[in-house]
């Protein structure tokens, strides 16, 4: 179980996360929605220990993650702003991650092939990032996170810039990984995709979280909840 307790974070006095507590059960997937600036990315970065300047604690299997370094956190973070090597190919990026995780070569190549197939990236395996479209870069970003040897995946806007076919490919990959017991925490504005891949949903509003089963939510309901925080 991944647990956050009393997370409080402010930016120059503006509280974005106001003593948030929640328990994420392993093997499930959670959507995170909220208006722009609601604190979704901040929340994900706090989980990953990329932001440490906050109050409250994070526990994984009842063990505090708070003193741990970001590089030791056993979770994969798929950021909305990927950092790629301009002169390494798509395949080389994935090889680097597999090698740094000490995955044996045969298994690494197998994993890479599987992920290429799932995300329809086969034809781009020897391309450099500069030659790729926004959508393909986003899929490479997702592939780089998914190829990792971990069971908890934190994703920030994974469906952004993807066309409907690519969205479906990503949804299928997430669902496949879910069947193998992996956990996902996904921040997104794409409510249709969240409905396809998530079990539960957290709505961030005015620094607080509202918890819903995904089956309870409709697009209209979420729009109303988020809309209320604009004071319209």
């Amino acid at each position, binding site marked *: 179980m991944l647990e956050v307790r009393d997370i409080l974070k402010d*930016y*120059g006095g503006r509280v974005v996360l106001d003593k948030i507590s929640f328990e994420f059960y392993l093997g499930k997937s959670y959507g995170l929605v909220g208006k722009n600036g609601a604190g979704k990315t901040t929340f994900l970065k706090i989980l990953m*220990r*990329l*932001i*440490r*300047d906050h109050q409250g604690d994070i526990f994984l299997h009842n063990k505090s993650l708070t*003193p*741990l*370094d*970001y*590089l*030791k956190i056993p979770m994969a973070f798929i*950021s909305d*702003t*990927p*950092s*790629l*090597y*301009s*002169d*390494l190919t798509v395949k*080389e*990026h994935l*090889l*680097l*991650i597999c*090698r*740094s*995780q*000490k995955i044996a070569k045969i298994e690494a190549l197998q994993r890479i092939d599987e992920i290429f197939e799932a995300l329809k990236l086969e034809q781009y395996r020897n391309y450099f990032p*500069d030659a790729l479209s926004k959508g393909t870069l986003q899929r490479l970003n997702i592939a*780089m996170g998914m190829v*990792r040897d971990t069971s908890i995946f934190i994703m920030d806007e994974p469906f952004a810039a993807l066309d409907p076919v690519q969205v479906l490919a990503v949804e299928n990959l997430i669902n496949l990984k879910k069947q193998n017991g992996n956990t996902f925490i996904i921040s997104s504005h794409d409510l249709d995709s969240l409905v396809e891949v998530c079990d539960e949903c957290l709505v961030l509003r005015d620094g607080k979280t509202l918890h819903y089963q995904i089956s309870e939510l409709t697009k209209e309901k979420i729009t109303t909840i988020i809309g209320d925080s604009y004071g319209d």
Partner: protein
Amino acid sequence: MAIEALKYHWLNRVRQSIRLMKKNFLLLFAVAFFSVFLLSMLEPIAGVIREHNTVFEKWGSFIFLIYCIAKIMQDYPTINIPIQFLSVKAVNLGFIKGYVFVKSILFSLGIFMVFMLMDISLSKTLVVALIINGLANLMCFYKTQVSSLLRSQTIFLSIIILIYLVDSVALASLVLAAMIILFLVRKSLKYDDIYKYYYAYGGMLEGIVSNDFARISTVQSSLSKSKVKSKFAFLEKFYENAVFFYYFKEISRMTVCIRSLINAYFVTFVCCIAPLFYGGIAWLGGVAILVIVLVMDNILTRLNKPEAINKKNGFYLPFTPYQLLIQKYLPHVTILIIPLLMSTVFLAGVSRLALVAIFLLLPVKSVVMNFSTTWRGKMVAYLMDGILFSLCFGELFNYLISSVIGT
């Protein structure tokens, strides 16, 4: 695991360099020419240093001190870590610590090796300065790991200046060892600021390789401390009066880089004060004024460059470079008043007329350099650059020429 990350990092670097060379073939010749020239000049330079060792010891350590103070005063960690190391978690914490440590002392170590190879004896003062340089690099990184930036900055600056004044290799080594231990025992790093910085820096590097100046400018702007709100309403207040309107437009924009401006004033102050300790060396004032001009030119470029790029990218700014010069000259001269006064009062060895000429010419050069799009405009800017540096470097240049002729 770390070796793999380094391997792929260097593979990327090699390919990047090849790409850069292919794109800009002239650069290849320039690099080759400069390398051969530098190698052929090594022995004459070594001769001059050997002959005037005490002078080089004084100004070399002085320049190192100014450089270290400037590094500590800025907001950046100085030591760069490729963002990909962090984003793909291809390395562990121990590697990052080692990487920062090695990069911190690499420059000083390199200078030390060159001096050894060229058979030049290193004076105590210069050794202290080299240790201070490594120490300052570590301090710059460490500054991002503590919560009170101002307090740590003050403490680090005091330590560095104290070591410089005491001029003791033992003290400098002791403080460096303490700093290394303090850094290595950390169980985790704070990524709040450095992750953003390295991400932006990686983008800037890519912009340089691809000649994408708009990208470089965007990154440079994002590297400044985040701007949240502005309380200034000058533009609305002075809308009707063109002179005041454009004057306050520039003044409002200066608030964005106010921290850099304060740092620049501090560096100016140190540059003005330090030559007083070496009254016998007349040309040291020239070195000081050169540093001041470079720092202030950087501030003016930060004000002009983003606007010039916006204009190039289609932002509606219907002014000719001449009109822009009229609008910007007065506000830009205003920020140069403090350095002008300081250098006039303290830098006894530098001609007052030259100082006034430098500070009146600098804003013109910056506007022409950044906004001119024609080759004639650029030539004028380079000509002004030449005049500026001749004025700054006059006495030092004379000294070097006479030294070379003497040998």
